[in-house]
């Protein structure tokens, strides 16, 4: 039981909620948009700006890890198909 209590404190059961911009079954653009928004956010306010974490959590929850890796690669190579300018 103590294990459970410990486990409970370790995890926050919470995920990205409903987004009125993406009410459909297709959530592809939502993952992408949150990735872009996160990068724009940290470019504008810096890595440690807490509200940016919202986008980070959202795209981590929604994008498959393989996609995130690919996005990061494209970002480094400058081939990501969107601007990160704030």
């Amino acid at each position, binding site marked *: 039981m103590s294990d459970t209590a410990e486990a409970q404190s370790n995890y926050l059961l919470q*995920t990205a909620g409903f987004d009125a911009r993406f009410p459909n*079954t297709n959530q592809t653009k939502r993952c992408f948009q949150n990735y872009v928004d996160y990068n724009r956010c940290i470019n504008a306010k810096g890595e440690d700006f807490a509200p940016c974490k919202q986008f980070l959590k959202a795209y981590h929850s929604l994008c498959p890890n393989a996609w995130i890796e690919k996005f990061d690669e494209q970002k480094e190579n400058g081939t990501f198909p969107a601007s990160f300018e704030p």
Partner: protein
Amino acid sequence: MLQQISLFKTVYCDAPQPWQLGFQDSGAPGFTGIVELHNTIFFYLVVICVSVFWLLGSIIYYYNNTKNPIIHKYLNHGTLIELIWTITPALILIAIAFPSFRLLYLLDEVISPTITIKVTGHQWYWSFEYSDYVSESGDPIEFDSYMIPESDLELGQFRLLDVDNRVVIPVDTHIRLIVTGADVIHDYAVPSLGIKIDACPGRLNQASLLTERTGVFYGQCSEICGVYHGFMPTAIEAVSVQDYLTFLDSL
């Protein structure tokens, strides 16, 4: 075969049985709705079938050439009766369409989920990712789920259905599934939970998952995806929230 004849069956939960007719036991409100819609429509379907064939049969019987050599004017053409039998089916179709669409849109709804689980179809296995709890540095929780080959089956396990790593989910919790494919189109389907959604490469499909009881729910890939299409099943294990947290800890 004996099991088929026997009246007193044990309960076969959440996995199909050989030569099964009808649905598996429902584990989710969505599937309960589907079964209910099916049963309701089926009732009216039987009523319509019986009355149509009754009418057809009796007309063939009573008004054939030998029994009824004289053609009745009002049987050959009758505007009123033609109007009735054109409009009535239209109304019946509307009566079927409304509850059907209602259910369809209800199933589409992803109600404020607590957890997001990412499902990826590969040739030929499913992989799952839990990323809600991951901090920037933390390792993401991800695992592959392969079918247990027939030679490795233990007593009580299902042939072609059991997998090495089940998806563990908390019961009575709204869960969002994000389904995608890594190579070709697959389809993530778990009948007893009313889930069936395409896993397309380059696209993220969202589906909602809610189990009403604990248990193991089996499903299979439902889009022809190559030679081992029939050998990439999935098993969802619904446990209490406490057990779920213990599971997360054990990963």
